């Protein structure tokens, strides 16, 4: 798949943003006043920024309101509804926390749940696609959720929680890559089934339908060199997990500099997750590529 900056920014930022909102909704930390303002501002900037970024790839963003109508069947529609629900509920909750110094626990829990649900629906947009075996796996929502929760905890300053969740997310990431690398083969879809000619012999794409490119090739066929991908995986893993964990452990051991070091951990994590998301798209093989002899 084409690793469009808009979708990478969207899934990375909104995942972290809603992750942070989740923890804020649970009252971890239970902040009020200026501190709450800052934390909610960060969470909203990321969640809303991400959602806005996602509209950049629309052909007709002015019709975006129509996207709330099909929640009964469409995960994208559901995501829109959940996101708006989460933002509204958490907005009310934030109003209470920032301006009234109130923590409306029930509202917070509902908001947290909606935030998590938003991340889940986002992940399901990808997971539902049988056409992309690397996404069409149970581990995809697990990965999105674990990243969101870990990143959220990290940003919420829940150091011990973050350590545990980062460890879990790291393991999920490794499992996702391992399973993902086999997904296309396991799916059973190949040029033979794509053309129905597989039982006649070995099928090879000969002339493409057009010598030039087209929307399908630009959107769905992005071949990352294997070496390149392996290197990026190491970088992504180090930035998203290893470095933040090291920083957090250092913070605990040193027991000082409560804000500066974790700030770097967050930056590192953000960069790592963004790289992971780049790979999530760039390495995803859409089966339509088979028709063009790609993969």
């Amino acid at each position: 798949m084409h690793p469009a900056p808009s979708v990478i920014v969207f899934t990375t930022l909104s995942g972290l943003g809603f992750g942070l909102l989740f923890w804020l909704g649970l009252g971890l930390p239970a902040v009020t006043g200026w501190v709450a303002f800052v934390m909610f501002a960060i969470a909203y900037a990321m969640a809303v920024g991400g959602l806005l970024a996602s509209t950049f790839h629309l052909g007709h963003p002015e019709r975006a309101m129509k996207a709330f109508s099909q929640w009964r069947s469409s995960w994208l529609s559901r995501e829109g509804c959940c996101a708006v629900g989460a933002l509204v509920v958490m907005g009310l909750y934030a109003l209470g926390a920032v301006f009234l110094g109130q923590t409306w626990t029930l509202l917070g829990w509902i908001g947290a749940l909606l935030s998590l649900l938003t991340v889940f629906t986002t992940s399901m947009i990808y997971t539902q696609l049988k056409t992309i075996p690397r996404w069409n796996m149970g581990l995809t929502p697990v990965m999105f959720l674990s990243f969101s929760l870990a990143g959220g905890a990290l940003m919420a300053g829940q150091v011990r929680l973050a350590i545990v969740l980062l460890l879990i997310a790291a393991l999920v990431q490794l499992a996702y890559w391992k399973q993902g690398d086999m997904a296309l083969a396991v799916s059973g879809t190949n040029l033979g089934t794509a053309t129905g000619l597989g039982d006649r012999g070995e099928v090879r794409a000969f002339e493409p339908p057009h010598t030039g490119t087209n929307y399908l090739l630009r959107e769905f066929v992005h071949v990352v060199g294997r070496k390149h991908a392996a290197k990026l995986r190491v970088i992504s893993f180090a930035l998203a997990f290893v470095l933040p964990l090291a920083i957090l452990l250092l913070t605990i051991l040193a027991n000082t500099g409560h804000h500066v070091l974790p700030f770097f951990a967050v930056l590192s994590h953000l960069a790592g997750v963004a790289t992971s998301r780049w790979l999530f798209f760039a390495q995803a093989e859409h089966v339509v590529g088979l028709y063009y002899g790609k993969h």
Partner: protein
Amino acid sequence: MTTLPGKTEKKLGLVIDLDTCVGCHACVISCKGWNTENYGAPLSDQDPYGGDPSGTFLNRVHSYEVQPLATSDKPHPAAQLIHFPKSCLHCEDAPCVTVCPTGASYKRVEDGIVLVNESDCIGCGLCAWSCPYGARELDQAEGVMKKCTLCVDRIYNENLPEVDRVPSCVRTCPAGARHFGDFADPESNVSKLTAERGGMDLMPEQGTKPVNKYLPPRPKDEMDQIDVLAPFLAPVAEEPAGFVGWLDKMLEKI
């Protein structure tokens, strides 16, 4: 409405005969011509006279080489080349419909045609992502999703003579490799062809239940098989003199 109808009254679609398609691209361009002028926004082309021309097409013809495996009968089988037209298969279980967040994509209850209501389309591209066949293309000029309409503006069009109420690709196909009809009717031409020739689904494992069927190529190069009983011609004479004798005999019979 992006939920799929439980059942459609008709199942209109195409049979594409891979044994007959010569790969001429006539269907590709006829489709481009009709659908540029008709249903919805024109099919645009970017950089049409430049270094990287690219445009929206609803039907494209691929080609594949198949290398049959060697057998004792045929130790050196020749590779085969198969032309492969591909457009929307109007799936019964069309994932492109259910993923649509706005309801722009829908499958018609009356005939099963999958269409995009362009005025509702936000151009998110998710339907194209969900289609295993590459049947949908986002028009770069209009920002809406384009796809085969099965020429819904031809097949019922009372301004066209009845014989022309078929998709433009079918009407134009010089080799007659494309057939249009109702798969819900077991007596239709398309149902019969599918039954007789073993019409197949593309990517059945994707679970999309395509309506369009592909007829597989017939067996090829059978005269290249090692077969000791092959009917070679028996000589009438080994020598020119013998030939003249035979000729005389034969001419008497005329």
